């Protein structure tokens, strides 16, 4: 037998059964991605296999511990300037994948770890897919989150394999599934322990069970006639409209559009898929979502440059934030001691941990282990054992001073001290410490399990090494660290303060609740400002008003004050500006319909108010730059990802017009604004 040819990204070996093992190990990368070069090599390999008559089967497997294949090379795609180039690339990949599918010998994808996007599309072109049962094994087509959809034939093959409803759901949501869920859906043929993965692959090649991708599901076959396709699509679009708007997120609509156009069974479905991606790649949404992806990577970079690992975290305060942070940390594998004098508060925190662990860990032994890691500690014994101590008690300086004096006495010298304060000054809290440089802010957002961002706050005296440890810890628990400087409300709450302020101002001028909140949602925010205030708690808003809404008039605050005095604190008391029935907000219809001009005006003011705050944050160096600011508002304040960030959005407007509006809004001269260094910084980049 001739010596096998050497490849850079793939390793070929033939075993005693004459099965070819195709191990992917992309050179110079931590993870496997399908770049142009990787696919080009694969193309040669597949031709080689096709001409090798002795070969009895092929197994795709990864040589990297980081997983199977994470998708196409996002960086490469984002640099594509000519969409034709992208379409051409996808055509080539589609031809390659069809060639794999058409091989006469069985082809198996043996999947352990992440199998996403293009990686899953490759697996879908294989005849069989086997997944390891490790919790790290996740399969998904996250392309819609980048403003595109699968382009290597995946969106066609998924529909054939999973049927129309399940398949559409899977593509449109862009959600990952674990191995067991994948088996249940029919996405993989079997789930096995990692130790049996190779043996299972051999079994599939030797026995060739019937169920392969070549046979489509009945729903796909049945719904292929054009008339049925358009009826079903009508229903699916209705469902989709409730979640995302077409002008904001065109990709999911394009997936439905492609299917209604050409179906899923004919060969031309592939060409349609590639052309559609080519169109999407030009949209601003796509551009912005790629930016969001790179912002996410940029935040992860903030945790680089040092070694630090938390084994044991001690959390003081088992309220909503403290308890939920404890729950998150326990689920992420940390030993947690949770200090609170109230058994009820501790109990409630443990119950929430149990719910979260059930949701995220699913398996009984993992849930039990997470619960065992979280130790209720009313006496605070954990203080002297912990690597990181996080205070999440009431927002009262005197109380925090007492707590930190005690921490100073008991904590290990190496322990990092942190506060979750959102409204007090870090420097003032740190004043009672022997070494004030030891304290950082680690500011989580509510709800902790859903919000990806955590602000890592440094005061003037904070030791930069400590701040770095804070960022490393945040990354350790799978959140995105955003370094910010001490200052009222840091970044995210400052921006939200602007949002609230403009919202209350609009109310004050006689706009209805519905109009104000609708304007917020039109901007793309997940909730309008008043709904959000209700969720946050009106008492909390009122307490923070002096520094988060300094420009609010007496009148706006009186409305807030009145609500608080009546004990109508928002969602938590089921009554605030809105009424609630359990989880549900009860919206009363307005008498008059709001005209779209005034809606647009409110929306514009909400945006200007937030922008104005953003510029102040840049000016005072609360955050280090434009990208960091945009990352903060997207991952922390819920600013719509499809706009690419607050400042990114600002730059879509005409500079002079925006300057005029903003100066108007701030009631300053345009010349004053133009002298503003943050304003200049905004327009300097990109």
């Amino acid at each position: 037998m001739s010596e096998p040819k050497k490849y850079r990204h793939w390793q070929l070996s033939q075993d005693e059964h004459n099965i070819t093992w195709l191990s992917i190990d992309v050179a110079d990368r931590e993870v496997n991605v399908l770049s142009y070069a990787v696919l080009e090599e694969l193309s040669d390999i597949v031709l080689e296999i096709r001409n090798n008559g002795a070969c009895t089967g092929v197994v795709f497997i990864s040589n990297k511990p980081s997983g199977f294949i994470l998708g196409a090379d996002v960086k490469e795609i984002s640099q594509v300037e000519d969409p034709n180039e992208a379409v051409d690339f996808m055509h080539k990949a589609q031809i390659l994948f069809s060639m794999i599918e058409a091989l006469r010998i069985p082809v198996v994808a043996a999947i352990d770890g992440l199998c996403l996007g293009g990686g899953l599309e490759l697996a879908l072109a294989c005849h069989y897919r086997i997944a390891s049962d490790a919790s790290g094994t996740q399969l998904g087509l996250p392309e819609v989150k980048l403003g595109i959809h699968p382009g290597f034939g995946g969106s066609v093959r998924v529909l054939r394999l999973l049927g129309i409803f399940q398949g559409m759901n899977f593509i449109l949501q862009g959600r990952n599934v674990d191995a067991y869920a994948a088996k249940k859906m029919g996405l993989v043929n079997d789930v096995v322990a990692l130790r049996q993965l190779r043996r299972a692959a051999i079994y599939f090649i030797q026995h060739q069970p019937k169920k392969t991708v070549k046979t489509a599901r009945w729903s796909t076959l049945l719904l292929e006639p054009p008339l049925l396709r358009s009826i079903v699509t009508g229903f699916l679009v209705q469902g989709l409209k409730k979640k995302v708007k077409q002008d904001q997120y065109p990709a999911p609509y394009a997936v439905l559009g492609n299917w209604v156009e050409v179906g899923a069974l004919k060969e031309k479905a592939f060409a349609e898929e590639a052309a559609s991606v080519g169109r999407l790649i030009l949209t601003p949404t796509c551009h912005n979502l790629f930016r969001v992806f790179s912002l996410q990577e940029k935040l992860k970079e903030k945790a680089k440059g040092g070694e630090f690992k938390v084994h044991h975290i001690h959390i003081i305060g088992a309220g909503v934030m403290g308890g939920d942070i404890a729950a998150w940390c326990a689920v992420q594998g940390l030993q947690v001691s949770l200090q609170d004098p109230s058994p009820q508060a501790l109990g409630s925190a443990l119950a929430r941990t149990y719910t979260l662990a059930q949701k995220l860990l699913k398996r009984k032994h993992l849930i039990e282990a997470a619960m065992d890691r979280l130790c209720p500690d009313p006496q605070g014994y954990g203080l002297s054992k912990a690597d990181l101590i996080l205070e999440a008690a009431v927002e009262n300086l005197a109380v925090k001073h007492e707590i930190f004096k005690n921490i100073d006495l008991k904590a290990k010298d190496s322990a990092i001290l942190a506060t979750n304060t959102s409204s007090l000054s870090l420097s003032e809290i740190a004043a009672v410490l022997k070494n004030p440089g030891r304290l950082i802010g680690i500011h989580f957002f509510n709800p902790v399990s859903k919000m990806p961002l955590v602000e890592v706050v440094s005061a003037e005296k904070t030791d930069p090494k400590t701040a770095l440890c804070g960022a490393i810890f945040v990354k350790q628990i799978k959140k995105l660290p955003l370094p910010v400087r001490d200052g009222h409300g840091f970044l995210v709450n400052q921006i939200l303060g602007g949002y609230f302020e403009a919202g209350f101002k609009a109310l004050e001028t006689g706009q209805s609740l519905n109009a104000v909140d609708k304007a917020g949602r039109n901007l793309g925010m997940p909730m309008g400002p008043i709904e959000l205030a209700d969720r946050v708690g009106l008492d909390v808003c009122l307490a923070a008003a002096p520094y988060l809404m300094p420009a609010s008039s007496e009148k706006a605050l009186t409305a807030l004050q009145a609500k608080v005095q009546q004990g109508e604190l928002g969602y938590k008391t089921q009554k605030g500006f809105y009424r609630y029935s359990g989880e549900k907000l009860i919206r009363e219809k307005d008498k008059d319909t709001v005209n779209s001009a005034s809606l647009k005006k409110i929306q514009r003011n909400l945006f200007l108010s937030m922008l104005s705050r953003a510029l102040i944050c840049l000016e005072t160096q609360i955050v280090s730059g434009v990208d960091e600011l945009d990352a903060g508002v997207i991952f922390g304040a819920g600013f719509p990802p499809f706009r690419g960030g607050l400042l990114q959005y600002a730059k879509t407007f005409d500079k002079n017009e925006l300057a005029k509006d903003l100066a108007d809004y701030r009631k300053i001269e345009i010349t004053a604004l133009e002298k503003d260094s943050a304003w200049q910084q905004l327009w300097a980049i990109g």
Partner: protein
Amino acid sequence: MVKQKRNRVLVVDGARTPFLRAKGRGAFHAADLAVFAARELILRNKISQQQIDEVITGCVMPGPCEANISRVISLRLGLDVHTPAWTVQRNCGSGLQAIDSAMQAIQTGRAEVVLAGGTEAMSQAPLLFNVQMVDWLTQLQSQRSLLGQLKTYLSLRPGFFKPVIALLLGLSDHQVNLSMGQTAEILAHDFEINRQMMDEYALRSHQKSVEAKAAGFLNEIVPLYDAKGRAYTADDGVRADSSLEKLGKLQPFFDKKYGQVTPGNSSQITDGAAYLLLATPEAVEKYQWPVLGELVDCQWGALDPSRMGLGPIYAIAKLLQAQKLETRDIDYWEINEAFAAQVLACLKAASSDEYCRRHLGLNKALGEIPLDRLNIDGGAIACGHPVGASGARVTLHALEVLKRNHQKQGIASMCIGGGQGGAVLIQNLNSI
């Protein structure tokens, strides 16, 4: 026999869960209870994974998923995977046996630091299929033909569904065909203990428990939390409103109708766990741990199973002899209250010249065990008797009592189903 020099055994700390009366299946399995009690010890003494050499747990009826429950607990506590752990079963003496085994490991120099205690979730005891049902299921499985299967189905009888209550079987002595309560009836008969005396004793147990809690004397209790977030902070079987009148209304349970032992003057069926951290003086110094007391010696005795309740007297006699002590040298006593009749019988036996001469081979009575020095914070009649855990609870609580009252010596003792008794001599090393 040449006596080797033994290492001293110090108690660093101890903790227990609240004892929860069984009302249907409880919220916790035996291992859950143990984790709550022992995790606190590990946290508050800043114990690192590798410092513990061994984990020994007493448990009579671990759940089906808790084989060698001590190992399960050790791993769930996050202790080193290389830390060996084993489980002991000596019925009601299991918790005390765990402590004795830990003492031996330390005394002989095989271990420096041992986590020892007991746990029991009696409310989780399973219902079993009866033998007819088991046979029927076996037959069904062996049938290959459809007809055979059909025939087997037709042979199913309603009686096959009558479950066997594992807990009741466990609380019976099948060698002498007596339930534990019946052995207490025998002692009541032998020692002329009447219903009034039993109920009075039971009432005092509740009252003393209530007083102890009010005075903050039960600090060894660590709260439990269930998955729904409910906190359990205190023993829930203790009745502040108990009275002779109420106790008098209860029917005899074991010797029905004519007997005297009622649920009210017996210990309660309960879930709970208790752990102690034991170490050599060298380890205590090295890790700068506090010291709660010292375990001096542990002795065991055995007797006629139908009088198992007198077991403590046999063990105590051996212990006092071995240590050359008299009953008056003992400042405080804990004798587990399996039944009021059984404790009262122990006191009578100990002070009876005749009994001690005839049964213990002594030339006179063992001595007085004064009621006002016995179970001064109440006992199992009030707080319950999770069988595997009680031995560890009485040992821990005796240490707490000595410390609180600045007294030197105490004995904690258990009666054991099957006709045995165990007793441990403890000393307070703090200010006396």
